[in-house]
């Protein structure tokens, strides 16, 4: 395997001692961009142009072009505006943002400062997943250090610009990763998505114009501006610039986060993670987090790790959460666990998701416990199809896609369970 460049952007300091400390960050060029911005050397429009040139797409899963999102905000509209960072990293298989918060929090702080400046927001909130206590403390410490260094607060470095940054710890609900549910949660309400439109850019936190970006997206910004949009774009492929952190988990020898360039072949990523464990063969891959469609090995092994290539294979890059399944994996059991997750995490607001996630889980669970009925396969396809596209937010679709894709590629395993009451691997 040719050597693969690693950790060129968000994780660039992770190998250093006390990489989370402001001294380490500043010794490595940290906050230089912020100082340039405050000095007026980079105008908001120049920043947006640079971000557009970088071809960075939102790292939270939806892949929306970041520069375009920022351009929706009218920086000069009167009244408060907000920049929010979505660190509610809750998708099963995803753990990339955690290591940004733990090991390079200042780069995220700087990214939020710049983003706030560009959209005209004097206040930012970083909403951190409820279970992330250690990352929460690391990030909050970074914020305090930035205040002490005079990089946050009122009239920063004499520029006349004010920016306050708050760290907000969630309370353990997956749905709060949905941007409007996150907004509701910050407002102190039950975390459930809002109907859109209006979008946050016009009616967001406290009804004010708001931009929400993922942790990895915002943490990439200082590097994009330091090295140029073109540098970042050239790291990736046409249509998707830069590096991307992939969280590799499951049946591999070395699970973990790998920041590699967009478009790296899946095979190479698998090799980086030490390959399938115990010398077994690859059976299936969920490439972008639990809500993306599962791919059988042969399709996965042909794809590259970028949006278009994964889409061509029949799934989605999502948040870059690669779940590896070896040849002994019981796909019925895997789906049983996934449907339980979505059943448990549906916010309960709209009908198809509230009622349908429980229905799907119960049927899958019945199959898994050997009580499946022949008509269950069609019923699962029917129920998942009835949820998709009929809900307020993405969670309903996220719950339905695994069911549809597992049945698409591994229906025979479900049939075996229904006929024999056990997995294809059980030799009863």
């Amino acid at each position, binding site marked *: 395997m040719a050597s693969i460049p690693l950790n060129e952007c968000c994780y660039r300091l992770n190998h250093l001692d006390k990489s989370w400390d402001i001294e380490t960050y500043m010794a490595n060029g940290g906050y230089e961009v912020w100082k340039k911005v405050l000095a007026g050397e980079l105008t908001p429009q120049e920043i947006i142009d640079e971000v557009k040139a970088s071809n960075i797409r939102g790292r939270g899963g939806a892949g929306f072009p970041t520069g375009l999102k920022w351009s929706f905000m009218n920086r000069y509209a009167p009244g408060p505006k907000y920049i929010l960072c979505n660190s509610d990293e809750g998708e099963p298989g995803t753990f990339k943002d955690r290591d940004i918060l733990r090991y390079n929090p200042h780069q995220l702080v700087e990214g939020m400062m710049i983003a706030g400046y560009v959209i005209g927001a004097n206040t930012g909130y970083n909403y951190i997943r409820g279970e992330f206590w250690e990352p929460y403390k690391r990030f909050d410490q970074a914020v305090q250090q930035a205040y002490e260094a005079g990089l946050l607060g009122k009239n920063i470095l004499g520029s006349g610009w004010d920016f306050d940054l708050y760290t907000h710890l969630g309370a353990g609900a997956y749905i709060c990763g949905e941007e409007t549910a996150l907004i509701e949660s910050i407002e102190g309400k*039950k975390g459930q998505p809002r*109907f859109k439109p209006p979008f946050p850019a016009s009616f967001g936190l406290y009804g004010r114009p708001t931009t929400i970006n993922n942790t990895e997206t915002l943490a990439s910004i200082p590097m994009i501006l330091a090295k140029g949009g073109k540098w970042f774009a050239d790291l990736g492929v046409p249509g998707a610039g830069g590096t991307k952190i992939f969280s590799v988990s499951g049946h591999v020898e070395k699970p973990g986060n790998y920041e590699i360039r967009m478009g790296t072949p899946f095979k190479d990523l698998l090799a980086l993670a030490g390959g399938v464990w115990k010398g077994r063969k690859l059976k299936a891959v969920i490439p972008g987090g639990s809500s993306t469609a599962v791919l059988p090995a042969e399709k996965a092994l042909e794809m590259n790790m970028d949006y278009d290539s994964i889409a061509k294979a029949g799934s989605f890059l999502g948040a870059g959460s690669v779940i590896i399944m070896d040849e002994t994996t019981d796909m019925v059991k895997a789906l049983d666990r996934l449907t339980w997750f979505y059943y448990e*995490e549906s916010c*309960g*607001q*709209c009908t198809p998701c509230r009622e349908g996630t429980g229905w799907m889980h119960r049927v899958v669970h019945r199959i898994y416990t050997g009580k499946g009925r022949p008509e269950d396969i069609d019923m699962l396809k*029917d129920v998942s199809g009835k949820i998709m596209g*009929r809900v307020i937010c993405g969670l309903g679709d996220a719950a339905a896609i695994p069911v549809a894709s597992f049945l698409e590629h591994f229906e025979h395993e479900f049939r075996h369970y229904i006929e024999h009451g056990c997995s294809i691997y059980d030799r009863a």
Partner: protein
Amino acid sequence: MIKIEINGQIVEAHEGDMLIDVADEAKIPIPRFCYHKKLSIAANCRMCLVEVEGAPKALPACATPVTDGMKVHTRSPKARAAQKAVMEFLLINHPLDCPICDQGGECELQDVAFEYGNDVGKYSEAKRVVPDHDVGPLIATDMTRCIHCTRCVRFGQEISGLMELGAVGRSEWMEITTYVGKSITSEISGNIIDLCPVGALTSKPFRFKARAWEMVAHPSIAAHDSLGSHIEVHTYQDKVMRVVPRDNEAINETWLSDRDRFAYEGINSQDRLTVPLAKSKGQWDEQEWEDALNQTVELLKPHLNNPDTVGVLVSPNATVEELYLLRKLLHAHGVKDIETRLRQIDFRLDEAAGKPVAPGLVNTLPEIEAMESVLLVGSNLRYEIPLLNLRVRKAQLEGARVRVLNVADYPFTFDLEDKVIADPQALVDTLKVLVRAAAELKGTEIPAGAEDAVVSEQHQAWAKDLVESGKATIMVGAMAQQSPLYADFVLWSARLADLTGATINVVPQSANEVGAYQVGAVPANGGNIDSMLASDKKAWIVVGIDPELDTVYGARLKQALDQADTVISLTAYDSEYLRSVSDIMLPIAVHTETAGTFVNATGDWQSFKIASAAPGDAKPLWKILRVLGNLLDMDGFDYVHADEVLEEAKAQTQSLGSVQGDLAIPARTCDKPVVLGEWSLYSVDPIVRRSEPLQKAAGAARPVVRSAIEADEIVLNTPAGPITLPNEYDESVAPGVVLVPMGLSETADVTLTDVSVAAS
């Protein structure tokens, strides 16, 4: 206007209107549960999904704004598939217990399922079961039936202003519930029964009483406050089973107060008088009507020779027809002392004007809702007229500044801009200061009486806002009306209104209070209840009230009735007290049992027909009066129909004084501590007091005095001697004020013209 196409039909609409409203207007049906025209859009039930050409997914009609040229299909295969899918999901966990559900027959889920549901459900797993909580005496819960549309939650947040219900939990376990262990206390809580599209929230008093399709719906008018809300009285075998609102944007919109909704239980109370009773030798005998009426005439006749010795006390909830006939019958014999103002103690305004000065709203309710500045003077509006309070709340939510002058810091359901909490005298003094501030602002002469007022910045801000708001009003409420300084409150409010350009609304309280003034059921001779009690009446006619509870004259009135030669009671209810003082008791019908008319606060004459049968031999009062007229050999008492009485009453309304700032009244001061009466939500009239569910509800009166005096008990002097009441120390009550709950047997002797605090 733009044009859109729904199912091939061209429909005109305003750009940005929601699709569901446009379709409703064009009478194109779209199923829905969470959508409600008076509530915010939730778009959570997903039942209204329709196909919009060009949109990849089916869109919720409730949350999709229309754009020019939009092509919509509500019944295409794509739309139907979405609607049927949602219906299927809604039903999987619904218990389908329609045969034992009170909502059966008028259930939105049932109706929509009939069209969009499948014959057989595919769901064969265990269904969700949700435990119920007792949320109070008015609303029954069966939360297993809930479909999570959140209409009830949004009602609390957006309409009533008390968020007493909320959603807790996620996914299938999401539940609508009250805050841990709390019950629902809102004065308009019953509306969530109407809003609930399923049988999750139903009427507790009505539970299992009748099926929707067995009942007859009678349009009628509500009788327990001055708005005259439009209602439907639902009867089964001629008995009132329940009361629900009728839509009327000008009055009650689509809402109803709990008082007007649940008072009917008092109509069906066990203590209704069902047969005429006459007392002979200390014994009460049941009578035939003919005998009873003859005896009534015999009892009355001797006194008619001396008409000044006859006093008549009538409920301000009696109908126009009843009040008019009483006046016609008695005025013809020279009896002028007919009084409906049973809770007023200050009549200086009438004396100054030379005729009765009636309260009334000069603004319509939609106008009040559009106010930019509101000054409430002596009013606990939320408990006086709940739906008028909603209008002020709406104004406040739209940015109006609401300020109050009150004797206690009442909990309003909207934010107050500012407040002054003080005793009545201090409140009147504040009004004077505001008048001076307004005069200074306008550069006009400072009215006499306000010369000594010292204006602060606070007062300037209040006056300035009234002057500068295009739409401003001063509303004088029940506390002011029932205080010893009513005339001062009204006059200074009127002067302030004149100076600032604000309107003045003196809020009537009872169903036909305004009508009583108009048809002459207030003394035309300058008299009033106070002067009537001060004169030596030999005969009293008492109509439609519990005399010991419905006035603020307590022991004074009781003594007058005791000392009279004759007391004739026309009453819907039998009571020990009435038996103890009356010579004859004639059973009368209540408002649902007669045709009649109420004149509401804004002066609308609203007629209604008979909805339910009077119990036993009880008769409509207008018919009794008609026959009494005949028995007294009077002309013009040959009415066949109540409409004839109404026509005549309309043609003969009384000349009234109006609320004017230029009247001159004799000065009066009010010593501290001042004892004021407080009417709770559910103590205001005989029917309400007999409604068991309301008496168990949060708004029922408690026999406790409230004051900022640190004492366990307070002793009040009454004409019948001192009475001792428990005192609740309450810092929200102004210093120098003692609030006594009225309409309770415990405080029946309290006489507000003759009361003082003896000890605490």
